[in-house]
């Protein structure tokens, strides 16, 4: 479809150059210079630069600005034909909605159900495309997080014009109950312009179909020359335009460097490891008491066994205990939980571990280690491979340092995140740049 539509231009708020944080984001309220400019291509570019211009677009320009229309309209007697052709195009456009599922969470499953056998949205001509380059409609189904929003923005920009967006479900509309939390954004319309909102948690397939039918109506109106403004909630309009610089900042998502490639190759070399563990484990196995409580009392100097919690083990025994347990057959790694305990005298941390002996009559071995502030704890990633990601998660969210961890990076949040959100002094509704 060769027809450009300036009406869909508000998406282009993301055209500010990457890596230049000093350049201020141009606001939507800039003067409507673009509207009066005659050359269509220039108009598109300009309006892309100034971002959404709600209610400030000249209808005569926004309707059909493709050069071929002007030429055709100037031919005597052809205007009727052009109008009919346009109706045909409108019909085609709204009856063949190619949907790109920007499915992140629960709504994505309902989106799949909509496309599947019972509801079968195919019969409306709406089919699912896996790539944005072949799609007309982006259905944002699910929670969008601060980490994901730049990706959504980029995918939106990859979609060819004309394009529409449907926000499916309360998370995409407003953030739902995650709205005030640190990692989520308060609605996808802070990132890209939304045409139809489909409420629900999640909306059932019928609701999504209804939303798509509303979108068809909207497309019909727009192509008939009637201006349909993009709906923007008042609260969203008041928000600062999302930090576009941040969204497309290459620093946030560094590519693989030559150094990393070299390391990737180095990883293929065998390294001897765990010799101490295996030989030591054989030796202790014979004489170990199988009862966990006796073991902890005799070998690891544990005196207190609280009734409602796991016993506390001294930090110096932690790694040895882990190896002993593994030798005793506790092979399955279960959890690491770090917790933060601030007080008047400072702060302490507590890390709880659990491992499991599988099979009939399974037993769970749990223990805790208490740490002073900034005191690291020995990582168990070399004993149980599963501790790797679990410890990364706890490092990320609570900020406990794991000594000897092979790859201590953030797991959940982006690398440039400030602070550790699961600490008690981290507010649950902390204002999150750039959205709040």
């Amino acid at each position, binding site marked *: 479809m060769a027809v450009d539509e300036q009406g869909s231009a508000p998406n282009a708020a993301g055209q500010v150059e990457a890596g230049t944080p000093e350049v201020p984001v141009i606001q939507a309220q800039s003067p409507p210079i673009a509207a009066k400019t005659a050359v269509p291509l220039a108009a598109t570019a300009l309006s892309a630069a100034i971002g959404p211009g709600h209610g400030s677009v000249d209808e005569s320009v926004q309707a059909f600005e493709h050069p071929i229309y002007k030429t055709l309209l100037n031919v005597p007697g052809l205007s009727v034909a052009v109008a009919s052709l346009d109706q045909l195009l409108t019909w085609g456009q709204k009856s063949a909605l190619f949907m790109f599922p920007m499915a*992140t969470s*629960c709504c994505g499953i309902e989106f799949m159900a909509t496309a599947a056998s019972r509801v079968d949205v195919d019969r409306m001509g709406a089919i699912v495309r896996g790539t944005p380059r072949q799609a007309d409609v982006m259905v944002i189904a699910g929670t969008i997080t601060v980490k994901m929003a730049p990706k959504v923005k980029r995918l939106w920009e990859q979609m060819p014009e004309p394009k529409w967006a449907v926000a499916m479900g309360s998370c995409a509309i407003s953030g739902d109950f*995650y709205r005030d939390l640190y990692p989520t954004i308060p609605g996808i319309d802070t990132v890209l312009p939304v045409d139809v909102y489909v409420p629900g948690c999640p909306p059932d397939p019928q609701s999504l179909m209804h939303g798509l039918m509303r979108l068809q109506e909207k497309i019909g109106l727009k192509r008939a020359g009637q201006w349909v403004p993009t709906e923007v909630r008042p609260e969203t309009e008041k928000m600062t335009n999302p930090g576009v610089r941040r969204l497309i900042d290459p620093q946030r998502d560094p590519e693989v460097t030559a150094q990393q490639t070299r*390391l990737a190759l180095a990883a*293929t070399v065998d390294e001897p490891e765990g010799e101490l563990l295996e030989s030591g484990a054989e030796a202790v196995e014979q004489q170990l008491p199988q009862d966990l409580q006796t073991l902890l009392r005799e070998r690891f100097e544990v005196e207190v066994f609280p009734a409602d919690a*796991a016993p506390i083990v001294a930090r110096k025994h932690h790694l040895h205990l882990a190896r002993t347990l593994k030798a005793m057959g506790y092979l399955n790694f279960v959890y690491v939980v770090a917790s933060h305990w601030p007080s008047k005298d400072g702060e302490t941390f507590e890390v709880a571990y659990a491992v499991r002996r599988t099979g009939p009559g*399974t037993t769970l071995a749990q223990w805790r280690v208490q740490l002073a502030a900034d005191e690291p704890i020995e990582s168990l990633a070399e004993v149980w491979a599963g501790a790797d990601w*679990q410890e990364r998660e706890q490092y990320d969210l609570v900020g406990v340092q794991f000594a000897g961890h*092979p790859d201590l990076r953030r797991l959940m949040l982006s690398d440039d995140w400030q602070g550790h*959100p699961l600490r008690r002094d981290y507010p649950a509704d902390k204002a999150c740049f750039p959205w709040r």
Partner: protein
Amino acid sequence: MATAANSPTESRYRLDQVDADADLMVLNFGPQHPSTHGVFRIKLILDGEIVIRAIPYAGYLHRGVEKLLEKLTYAQGVPIVDKNDYVSPMSNEQALVMAFEKLLKVEVPRRARYLRLIFSELQRIASHLLWLGTFALDMGGALGGGSTVFMYCFRDREGILDLFEAVTGGRFHYNTHTIGGNRHDIPLGWDKRVLAYLDMLEPRIAECESMTTNNSIFVARTQGIGLIDKDLAQGLGLSGPLLRASGVDHDLRRDAPYHAYDEVPVRVMVEQAGDCQARALVRVREMRESIRLVREALAGLPEGGINSGKIIKMPQQFKAQSGQVYAAIETPRGELGTFVIAGGGDKGTAPYRLKIRAPSLHALSALPWILPGHTISDVVVVLGSLDPIMGEVDR
């Protein structure tokens, strides 16, 4: 940056054949890709078509659920966790309320325990059906257009959603479990509907089997792919079908019975191979086993109340000043546990710290170990066979 220590280094992955001067390519898979089952990203380092190294990145759906649950009272937490593993919300609720019941020392009536078992097993069927459909879709054209299986599975899954809707009013997120029991009893005639549905479903599973696990193309694409041996599976903390497919005979329903599993015993499905085919076989057999369990539980469904009475009307009464508990159940994906430290909120009305131990997170942590040596087309198969749900991975 990852170092060698967290990576598989064994020559069975054909890595010794890699030329040191090889022209490596980096392929970014995700975070938006139809086959990543959500938003998940793997950085693949390739030599030609062979994956040399895979570096997964999670967290694109990290929503701060654990922080949110610290803010809310115990009773308010249930509808929140529905959204974690959104393919089996019932299991999420059960894992949470079971931890709270253990912490607050609340008894659950026998009928409620039976109902929980029935919901949990129906949910397992629904979840495995969704997995089978999407797994066939991942294989794509190899199965003669995998979308046939996808359509069949979704058709059958709708039946279970209808059954749940009849009980709870919710099609997708139910909010039906409370501390001390269930919120909704089953309506009149619901058990007959369930039995009729199960009678219909059984031959349909056989039909899906004939298109997948009994299909030679399916076998060719899954056999020997994505091997996880017993030791690795245990060390990574895998659970559920992944662990059982690697030859470990372990199922919390049998080994640490909860609900009414001590009265309705479970036959555990174990496969030895540890590849994608074994994982598929375990899941398909579990569906049949779940059908048997639901039938048996419905036959033995006791009369009586479904919750612990008046306390349910006063949810703010739930208070605990101290204590740490861990409760786990066997969801379709494995051991879903909740670790709670009491004493948060206003005088102990909320958890101080709550951690959800998600089986999918452990499953995905296997990727750097098993992907090297496979071709790109196998990456999708391996990822699908792990059945990760991103809502649960990232929470």
